[in-house]
């Protein structure tokens, strides 16, 4: 109890300090809006957030795509996926819903990817939809063979990082600047990166939901131990 109270006191002190700090911030912070907008025409996209994410601070995003891949590597290293794969054959209504929903989700993801250049949207939003679609597929048990194709899954997961890194290297060769796109072609490069990233993000999110490395079952035993999780 004393511990709890002292921790509470500590938290209150922290809150006071934080309040003091945020209240002392400039009324109208300078920000980088003006600069970001003035360089927008050179960035290859018209959505300023996308410009920041994939051009001005694209390097952050490269590492972030790395973090995503790292997360799934970490989760796979920790445990096997144990999401019960359902069976929709006896549930026709759900099946037909999925039949409609899945193409719509994929289409919407593609649209979000495209619109990201001009308006809110982009690889992460699109990837989130793809991830959702994958979750549905998994819950419906529609991807039993897909989920066990390790090599393919892995390639899909690393696609984002590899394409991003590849673009870095190629543009470095072309302009001698890391992630410095040749003049005028920024939009195209960004689209390449985002497409690859979206696939990897979608897969990552879906597989994070699956919660571990897919069970190799009888087909592939290259994953090591036979231990199962409940």
């Amino acid at each position, binding site marked *: 109890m004393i511990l709890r109270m002292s921790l509470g006191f500590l938290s209150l002190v922290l809150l006071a300090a934080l309040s003091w700090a945020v209240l002392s911030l400039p009324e109208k*912070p300078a*920000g980088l809006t003006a600069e*970001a907008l003035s360089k927008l025409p050179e960035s290859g996209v018209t959505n300023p957030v996308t410009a920041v994410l994939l051009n001005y601070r694209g390097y952050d995003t490269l590492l972030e795509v790395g973090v995503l891949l790292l997360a799934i590597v970490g989760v796979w290293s920790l445990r096997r996926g144990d999401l019960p794969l359902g069976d929709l054959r006896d549930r026709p209504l759900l099946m037909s819903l999925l039949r409609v929903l899945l193409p719509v989700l994929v289409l919407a993801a593609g649209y979000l990817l495209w619109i990201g250049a001009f308006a809110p949207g982009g690889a992460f939003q699109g990837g989130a939809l793809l991830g959702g679609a994958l979750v549905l597929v998994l819950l419906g048990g529609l991807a039993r063979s897909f989920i066990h194709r390790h090599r393919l899954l892995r390639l899909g997961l690393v696609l984002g990082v590899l394409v991003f890194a590849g673009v870095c290297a190629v543009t470095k060769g072309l302009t001698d600047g890391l992630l410095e796109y040749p003049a005028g072609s920024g939009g195209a490069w960004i689209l390449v990166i985002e497409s690859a990233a979206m696939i990897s993000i979608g897969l990552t999110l879906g597989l994070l939901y699956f919660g571990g490395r897919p069970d190799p079952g009888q087909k592939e035993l290259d994953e090591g131990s036979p231990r199962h999780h409940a």
Partner: protein
Amino acid sequence: MKGARATMPDHRIYLLAGAALFVIGFYSLLVQAHLLRRIMALNVMGSGVFLVFIALGALTPGAFPDPVPNAMVLTGIVVSVCATGLGLALADRLQTDADKVELEDGPETSRNTTDTKEESGG
């Protein structure tokens, strides 16, 4: 409320709310024992930080909100999702292997299994 600010909500509310969320999350992280709650506490902390970022971005003069903090928040959210995924997987593994939903206190040298309700530090 003064007239100058009447047209838009006072941004300080958001900054303070962000700070409060952060502190609430931190306090929970310190006092909660269950791993799931602690992971959620981390998410609350993160949300607080993101709220501060967004509030800062919304303040800058001009028609557009500052895109830089917005992009930073996007990055932060992705990291936070990854962290949650990793944390959950680790917590689950701990539960399966050690039958624990809380951290064991003290040095991890012994196979001492006494439960500890509170964790100092965080």
